[in-house]
């Protein structure tokens, strides 16, 4: 079995390499250094990293060539007699001061880069990023646009039922879109636990912490799609909340922003009408992707950690309590408040769905207006 796995890996490796030649994959297999940067800070960091590594490498080689020379030349088997010297103040002072000076030399460019990184002033665009278990929310407060970004890799690929796609685990339904060559400021926070937002090619990583608003910035010079992952353990699906950013030329970005605004306006209009049960169920099934991570695709949950929806006393009990649990969550557990993440329509639909599917059949229909009155 091991052998066949190794063989599959080798084949996967080869085909990935072949693929790498054809497509413009930013990160290829066997990569041994930082990903190619696309922002000024990313470039500074790469240079700094290369410089420090080179210095370390040189010191390492010097010190250990001395050691290995000694291992070779001062062996007993070669008849080397031990001398008995046991200190030399001069040598010790020298190898305290020289490393100190080298460190000062390293600290200077590091300080300069750090100062640049922390300067978030004069941004052209602000994006607010909120981490949730386990997805990201992106808001453009200056433009009234906001949306969620979920992993879009199918479960079947993760479980090995389907072959894995090129961007396995690094793909989302709604990527963040930003303009190129503009200073974009990110405001980071989280809803539940600590997450960290990281795009290696930008050189930006910062924690998203509940109750805090952290700041960082980037300026992306090249249009393209950039991929990263959450970089702070945030629970079960920490490995499954990727980050994808599309950097578009400013005109294209404006156009995207306009369509996005219109789409969201239409959604608001939808909130005010009555929905049929079928419509709600169809929409509810889509909204339920927000719940799958814990409650399972079939509503079976995970024994002892996440309750099943099928036959749940809440999902078959009073409607108002069900709605209010979904809206407000339950503090101290992973069941989060969906109030701000989901619209009235989404909540109405997912509640209707949970009450009439996944093994339940209460026959109840919950309208967006009803949710709004509980809100």
């Amino acid at each position, binding site marked *: 079995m091991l052998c066949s796995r190794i063989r599959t*890996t080798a084949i996967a490796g080869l085909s990935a390499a072949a693929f790498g030649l054809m497509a413009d*994959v930013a*990160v290829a*297999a*066997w*990569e*041994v*250094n930082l990903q190619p940067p696309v922002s000024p*800070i990313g470039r500074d*960091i790469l240079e700094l990293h290369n410089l*420090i590594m080179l210095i370390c490498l040189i010191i*390492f080689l010097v010190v250990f060539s*001395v*050691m290995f020379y*000694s*291992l070779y030349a001062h*062996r*007993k088997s070669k008849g*080397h007699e*031990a*001398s*008995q*010297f046991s200190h030399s103040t001069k*040598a010790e002072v020298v190898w*305290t001061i020289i*490393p100190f000076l080298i460190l000062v030399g*390293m*600290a200077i460019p*590091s300080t300069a*880069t*750090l100062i640049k*990184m922390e300067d978030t002033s004069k941004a052209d665009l602000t994006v607010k990023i909120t981490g949730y278990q386990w997805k990201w929310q992106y808001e453009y407060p200056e433009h009234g646009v906001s949306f969620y970004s979920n992993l879009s890799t199918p479960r079947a690929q*993760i*479980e090995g039922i389907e072959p894995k796609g090129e961007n*396995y*685990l690094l793909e989302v339904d709604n990527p963040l879109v930003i303009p190129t060559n503009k200073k974009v400021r990110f405001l*980071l926070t989280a809803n539940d*636990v*600590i997450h960290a937002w*990281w795009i290696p090619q930008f*050189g930006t*990583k910062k*924690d998203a*912490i*509940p*109750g*805090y608003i*952290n*700041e960082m910035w980037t300026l992306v010079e090249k249009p393209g799609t950039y*991929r990263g*992952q959450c*970089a702070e*353990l945030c629970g*079960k*699906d*920490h*490995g499954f909340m990727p980050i994808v950013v599309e950097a578009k030329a400013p005109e294209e970005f404006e156009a995207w922003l306009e369509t996005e605004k219109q789409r969201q306006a239409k959604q608001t209009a939808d909130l005010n009408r009555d929905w049929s049960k079928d419509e709600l169920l169809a929409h509810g099934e889509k909204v339920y992707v927000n719940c799958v991570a814990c409650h399972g695709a079939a509503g079976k949950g995970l024994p002892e*950690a996440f309750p099943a929806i099928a036959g749940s006393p809440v999902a078959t009990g009073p409607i108002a309590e069900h709605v209010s649990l979904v809206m407000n969550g339950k*503090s101290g*557990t992973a069941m989060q408040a969906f109030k701000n993440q989901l619209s009235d329509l989404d909540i109405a639909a997912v509640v209707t769905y949970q009450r009439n599917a996944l093994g339940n059949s209460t026959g109840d229909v919950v309208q967006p207006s009803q949710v709004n009155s509980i809100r």
Partner: protein
Amino acid sequence: MATAEAAHHDEHHGHPTGILRWITTTNHKDIGTLYLCFSLTMFLVGGLMALVIRAELFQPGLQVVDPHFFNQMTTMHALVMIFGAVMPGFVGFANWMIPMMIGAPDMALPRLNNWSFWILPFAFTMLLASLFTAGGGPASGWTLYAPLSIQGGMSVDMTIFAIHMMGVSSILGAINVIVTIFNMRAPGMALMKLPLFVWTWLITAFLLIAVMPVLAGAVTMLLTDRHFDTAFFNPAGGGDPVMFQHIFWFFGHPEVYILILPAFGIISEIIPTFSRKPLFGYTTMVLATAGIAFLSFIVWAHHMFTVGMPLAGELFFMYSTMLIAVPTGVKVFNWVSTMWRGSLTFETPMLFALAVVFLFTIGGFSGLMLAITPADFQYHDTYFVVAHFHYVLFSGSVMAMMGGAYYWLPKWTGHMYDERLGKIHFWTNTIFFNITFFPQHFLGLAGMPRRIPDYALQFTEFNVISSMGAFGLGLSQLIFVYVVIKCVRGGKKASDKVWDQPRGLEWTVPSPAPHHTFDTPPKIA
């Protein structure tokens, strides 16, 4: 163990035998043995958990475990290795060697000594049992960051209680070490004549007393946040999740030096013996150890560069962390100078010591890179950090203990270990260690986060290599277990000196060392 029995010449009163002997013992050698056996057991348990992790990461996709269990494994692996394998392991060495090295008959507080050991099996039963509670074991990483750890089930409470017990055990052990070193030295054994192993342990003991209560405080606050509606770390109640990290790392960074300073001590004993030369720069070695210990209290936030500190804070912690490289460098230079123009031989303990110097330095350099704040934003929470701390912890602390075990086993058991098997263990261990962990540097740089059960396809190749190395590394430890058992059971009779030209009081007594070593204090030249 059997041989210690043979050498048993305790005439005061009838001593229990069999299992009761080990439960009631107040003898530093017995307790040292208990600690070492416990440490080895935990090393194997923690190692099995690591193999679960590496088996899952052998291929992209989820094959072996589910993500929730994966997180329990990373959390438990770290807790078991740090608190179960490395810390008790060093206490075992301290128990065996400190009295012998300073010319004392036993530890100063023998009953306390028994107690501090026997707390541990209970603590770890509690910790490991938490894996079988509803919802599984703790899954928030060994760092137990709030608010994630507040979400966990009852296993988190059991972990907290276990940590309290381990803390009590460590503090009692540390008190014993300090009292022994200050009060039980043979006449003429001035502080500046202490073997370096004793010095490093003295400083480690102070670190333990200073920071274990801090950890206890942090986890107690977690506990009250979880159950008694306090809000130390809950922003909704006016608390602060980042405060947990500050408190944790105020413990955590000195903790990493608790895990390495005794290893420095062991290396500083082994290298002079096989170089047939005194340790180079004894005084600076002592000062460097003290300097590292002091600096370790003012660098903690280097684990938290990404939480969003003010620029001044980031600069302070960057500079202070970089400074640690100076005393660390001094140590490495001094070890190399000890070998310089010596008369070197390469028995197994020396091979381990050389590998520690070489590989620990790789970890030291990656530590220096991590200290460079702007670059740390790229490295933080990636496999680069995983590689770093395994180079300092495995090829630093653990391999130093293995070297120490080979070095002193003949003194402990009265038999020579099997040199050929020892060398085979050394080479398999060291080669597989590098196959396992060196590629993780590349993974981290290329962007693979740590603590994930599944990964993007471009990380496949190095993960395959790393997993194969890990299984080899795990298997090679079985050789070690075999060599130790074989050596305890029998083997060539060891002389008192064991090695060609060792220094130190422990080599002046018979092998195996009698049950009470220095009933009359030795004369120190």
